[in-house]
């Protein structure tokens, strides 16, 4: 299993915690978290660490997921980092809207904790193939 560093961004601390445990069931995954869009952008300022994928909650106060993605695209080292949205708005049209913003995938909340890591890796594999 290849090593995968993940930045998980969500304003809900409980969900962050569950998500970290879920993702780290996969021994190859290393997760850092951010509690807001702004915190995520701060974390990415740290040049010593770069995530291979960013999991972004959509509905967050102040700077939401799509807003964070737009700002992220202006940070040169992370402009091409794949972003996967994670959302409680499960409707199909919402998912296609998010994909159109430039995300490589969308995961619905509530997610299946036992297969969250597998889902994430599948999305990335799928994206690399295209």
């Amino acid at each position, binding site marked *: 299993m290849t090593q995968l560093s993940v930045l998980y961004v969500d304003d809900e601390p409980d969900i962050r915690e569950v998500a970290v445990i*879920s993702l780290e069931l996969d021994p190859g995954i290393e997760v850092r978290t951010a509690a807001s869009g702004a915190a995520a952008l701060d974390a990415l300022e740290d040049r010593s660490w770069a995530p291979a994928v960013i999991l972004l909650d959509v509905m967050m106060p102040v700077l939401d997921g799509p807003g964070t993605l737009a700002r992220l695209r202006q940070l040169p080292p992370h402009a091409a980092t794949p972003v996967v949205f994670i959302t409680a708005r499960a409707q199909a049209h919402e998912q296609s809207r998010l994909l159109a913003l430039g995300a490589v*995938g*969308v995961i619905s909340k509530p*997610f*299946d*904790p036992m297969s969250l890591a597998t889902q994430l890796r599948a*999305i990335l594999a799928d*994206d690399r193939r295209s």
Partner: protein
Amino acid sequence: MDGPKTASTWRRVPVIAAASIAGLLLVAILVTVHNEQAYRADKQSEAQAQAQVVAASVTAALAFDDRAAANEYLSALRANGQVEAAAVYDALGGLAASYSRDRSATFPKTAPDPKASRREPYLLVVAPVVQASTKLGTVYLRTEAEPFARRAVRYGWVALLALMGSVVAGVLAAAHATVGRANVELETRAADLHEIATRQRAILNSAMDAIVTLDPDGRIEMVNRAGERMFGYRLEEIVGENVERILDLGPDGEGGLIRRLATSREALVAGVAKELTARRADGGQFPVDLALGAMELQDGLHMVAMIRDISDRKRTERLKDEFVSTVSHELRTPLTSIAGSLGLLAGGAAGKLPPKGRRLIEIAHGNCRRLVRLINDILDIEKIESGQLSLRMASVGTAELVARSVEDLRGYADQLGVKMLLVVEAEDALVWGDPDRIVQVVTNLLSNALKFSPPHGVVQVVLASHAGLVRLTVRDHGPGIPEEFRGRIFSKFAQADSTDTRRIGGTGLGLAISKEIVDRHGGRLWFESEVGLGAAFHVDLPLAGVMPARSRPDDPVPASVSRRKAQA
């Protein structure tokens, strides 16, 4: 007092006139004949009297055979201009004296027969000259008689004048009567029209919606009071303006009004409803419902436009959408933590649990998932009922969608100990549909079949195509559908009996949603069942074509989508 009556009065005029003229002519003829007789009798007696006067005056002269005296007496006749000629014959018939008004008359030597002059244009009378019972001679007097033709002409003129007089009088009388009636009619009609206009104005002005009438060129003819308020113009400011001043008809600036409205004359006559953007005098825009009707008048197709400001409705719809979306988000957020934690516990991520603890976690986890399904279903039902279930249509391969559903439910089937048997007879069948929604239908039917299957049972999934249709059949060998439940199986919150809910754990919304989705695809969802032997649900969808083999997509990823999948 209406039109036809007035017309019939005028139609009777010639008949009345003809009858009057005939009557007048008859009277004129009778009067003429009578007058003629009286005239002749008058003339005759007048001349006769004159002749007797002459006879008396010449008696002595004749007795003495004094011809000069007789001639002198006759000359006195000159005083009577009507006497044309006169003669006195002696007892032997010899001419004794004569008189001629213009000295041209000639007299026979013997007395003429007065009866022979009947048809002459003069009257001839004879008077005997008698003295003491002895006839001394005869006086002949010829008086001018006006020719009948001339008199007839005079009668004619009189008759004509009388006729004309009576015709004029008749026409005047008739005209007066008719005009009088017509005046009454006109007054009544004007009053009626006024009343109709008053009524219409009151109705138009009390309407809540704007009502605008348009001429065939799309110019505004009339706006009611609601329209004046809605668009912020006074009637006189907007009449004659093009309707585009108040309504955005569409991006196309060319063509007639009917084409601009993307409709047809026929459709207009039947009535057309549209949602458009309207513009106020101050430039503000707002959404409206437009209902158009046609008004076929002499100069072309006019239109009646009823316009309703739907800003409030739009605002309410938006608020409801936001509310539903927020509630679903707010419910899902804690559920994500709960389901995630329970899922990790049940999955052994926190280490091995004692059997009872593990069972309790499984119960909590199962019900948590049920709650999530319920939220999803309620959102779907809400969308269906508000007409907002939007489908993202594409050409999709049914085999792939069915395979995805089967994969999605494999875990659930394993848990129940039920086998799924997939038979794909129509591998390349394409349908035109929303892939996510079709998967939702198949997943719903499959999970129902799994739920109702006995332990170690088999659920068959068959995909076949025939007669332009793709048919998906999901067959279980469960208890079947009770007779009394069949009629309402596709209704909301339908469950065969109340104990089912607890045992089977559905929301009672799945089939209602599935039916709506299939209907919206132009397909049909139906079932066959025999109590005790199981049930088979069929989804028939119109076939869109056959997929080229090389573009078939790869295996699906459940519970998430990737950019590549969405584009496939």
